[in-house]
């Protein structure tokens, strides 16, 4: 299978690629005790809340099935739904822009802001704009972007990167947040404590001024309704509502897969999303807008539809259901790998299990070859996914794409590919396999075990198997294989 002709997310802009492979970044993160405690604490609380909220609904599995079917319909008919959305938004006074990738989206948004004459924008929490590195692009054009979501504000003031889709500052505890506010927040009270209410009050004072002065707001969208041209943002704090209603100009950047066909589809998704995301029956603020209304809310509305590798993802029939994702983060919170490494190790704004399948598809697997392997395939992610994305199977599929990509870019197979081929051959014949099991045992008896014993008496193997013996002992090889025992008992 080839995936030629579909543009992937370009390198050098936005945040979908890490600077080092996952195993190395993960090892660094594992060494950070504060991070480990913050993550273990936060994920265990959210996990328990989600489980309780989901258990209240006796039709949860039916809702998941319905959501998956609705999203699959959107993906199968994306061209039609997108044109329908464009027509409805335009009819209601909005302007629709099409962005092939991050570079184009950043250019469009920067141009729109510049045209207003404003040098400041307020932002609603948005994954799409993090994905394309919009804040950096705006900064290059001399435009200051202020994140207004509390957690995004913490990340921005800390000159940090988000480490979770929904809780971007999950890697920070309240003492660290107090320290960031004291160092970076203009006009902050010098006696600020790490009491959560005090921290929220400090952020409120700081942000209120921005809301009242900003002329331009930038948002993402959780959903867009094709039949009505309605955009929707769900949030917890109300800061999004401020941004969506107070400024003169609203610019929304949205991935093309965020569509729903009709308004009634929200019945399904608004039950699934809050319970999966924060473990709440309903999120505190749900804002919807359709075009512009004279004298009420922003007078200018621009919708930027972003591809950035989504069409390339859609082209892979075994990978495309990653585009069902509604960014709830339930898979992050249950993932035993994410829980220990946090999000930064994944190198992308989309971390955890969904990030491990989404980021490599958006960038092309060659640019994220380690992410599909960043999972034990334990399946906890699939169990909680509200749109039933079979992440483990998709990881396995993407692993084969990575291996194929390696094979096609090298003339000789690597040691792993050669080993896999050799094992397949050896296991493919009864005599070969029986012989190999005996030879392996004889090899051990003939001194391999002695050779591989370190001074401390541990059996240590050469690379790559040393990765095993570094922290685990090897089993003692048996006197004979089962098949030899079976043959001997007659």
């Amino acid at each position, binding site marked *: 299978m080839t995936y030629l002709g579909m543009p992937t997310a370009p390198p050098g802009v936005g945040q979908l690629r890490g600077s080092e492979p996952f*195993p190395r970044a993960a090892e660094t993160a594992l060494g950070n005790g504060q991070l480990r405690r913050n993550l273990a604490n936060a994920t265990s609380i959210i996990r328990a809340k989600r489980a309780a909220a989901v258990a209240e609904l006796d039709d949860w599995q039916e809702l998941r099935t319905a959501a998956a079917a609705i999203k699959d319909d959107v993906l199968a008919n994306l061209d039609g739904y997108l044109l329908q959305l464009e027509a409805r938004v335009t009819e209601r006074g909005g302007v629709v822009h099409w962005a092939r990738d991050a570079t184009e989206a950043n250019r469009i948004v920067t141009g729109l802001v510049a045209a207003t004459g404003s040098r400041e924008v307020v932002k609603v929490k948005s994954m799409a704009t993090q994905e394309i590195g919009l804040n950096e692009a705006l900064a290059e054009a001399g435009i200051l972007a202020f994140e207004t979501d509390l957690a995004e504000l913490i990340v921005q003031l800390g000159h940090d990167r988000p480490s979770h889709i929904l809780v971007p500052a999950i890697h920070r505890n309240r003492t660290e947040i107090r320290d960031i506010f004291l160092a970076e927040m203009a006009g902050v009270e010098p006696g600020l404590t790490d009491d959560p209410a005090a921290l929220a009050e400090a952020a409120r004072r700081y942000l209120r001024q921005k809301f009242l002065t900003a002329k331009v707001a930038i948002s993402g969208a959780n959903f867009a309704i094709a039949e009505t041209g309605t955009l929707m943002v769900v949030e917890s704090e109300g800061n999004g509502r401020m941004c969506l209603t107070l400024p003169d100009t609203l610019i929304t950047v949205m991935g093309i897969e965020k569509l729903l066909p009709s308004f009634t589809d929200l019945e399904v998704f608004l039950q699934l999303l809050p319970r999966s995301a924060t473990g709440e029956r309903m999120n505190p603020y749900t804002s919807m807008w359709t075009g512009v209304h004279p004298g009420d809310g922003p007078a200018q509305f621009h919708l930027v539809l972003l591809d950035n590798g989504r069409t390339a993802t859609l082209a892979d029939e075994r990978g495309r259901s990653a585009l069902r994702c509604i960014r709830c983060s339930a898979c992050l919170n249950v993932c035993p790998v994410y829980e220990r490494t946090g999000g930064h190790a994944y190198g992308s704004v989309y971390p955890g299990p969904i990030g491990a399948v989404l980021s490599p598809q958006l960038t092309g697997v060659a640019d994220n070859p380690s992410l599909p*392997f960043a999972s034990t395939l*334990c399946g906890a992610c699939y169990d909680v996914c509200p749109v039933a994305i079979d992440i483990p199977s998709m990881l396995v599929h993407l692993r084969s794409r*990575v291996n194929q990509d390696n094979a096609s870019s090298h003339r000789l197979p690597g040691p792993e590919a050669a080993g896999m081929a050799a094992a397949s051959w050896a296991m493919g014949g009864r005599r070969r396999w029986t012989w190999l099991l005996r030879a392996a045992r004889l090899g051990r008896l003939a001194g391999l075990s002695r050779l591989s014993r370190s001074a401390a008496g541990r059996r240590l193997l050469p690379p790559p198997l040393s990765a*095993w013996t570094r922290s685990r*002992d090897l089993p003692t090889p048996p006197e004979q294989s089962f098949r030899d025992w079976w043959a001997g008992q007659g």
Partner: protein
Amino acid sequence: MRVALFATCLVDGLFPDVARATVRVLRRLGHEVVFPQDQSCCGQMHLNTGYPAEALPLIRRHVRVFAGFDAIVAPSGSCAGSIRHQHADTARRFGDERLAAAAEGVAARTYELSEFLVDVTGVIDVGAYFPHRVTYHPTCHSLRLLRVGGKPMALLRAVDGIELAELSAAESCCGFGGTFALKNSAVSSAMLADKVAAIRDTGAAVCAAGDSSCLMHIGGGLSRLHVGARTLHLAQILASTRSEPALA
């Protein structure tokens, strides 16, 4: 009942006691056990590391070897899971509809040991005796791919003399994940550390599970850290009797 044993390559080569124990339990319950000697590997390692083309001949072989049996029992949740969830799909991926259909047939007659005992034969008490403190790790693929649920625990509860200790965060992965343990050995070890600590906290002499690969990982950690607990496959506990006890 005539039962074909799929020992799995790992058990065949490294943990033959587990296959022998499976045979003992099945024979004790009156079944005729056959071991088709052309069997080798289900291809799970190849598939899950991203080498479906290399797995295909193993799948073809497995399906040919086991096609004629009414019941195929494997002492492994992950191998049974691979057979049930990946074989036919992989055959289709390579355009082999005939193999896919045959693989579906074999998959439908393949059971992980606890499934076979509880669902097919309806036996909960297999007449085992194991007077030791045991904790049970419900391996990810048994739990979430096969959905064996409470079957292994039901079998263990019926064992005479056993003292079961609940494992905290039991459903968390031990960190094995096949080649994950090598490719991401640091994260794998961090997960193993928590599993080992949970096992230690139970005070159990034995950590049992239905998959020798997970047990190899957990056992490697228990041994390295001299925790004083060891691993046994579920089959080994179920095979243990007063006259032929398994050692704790």
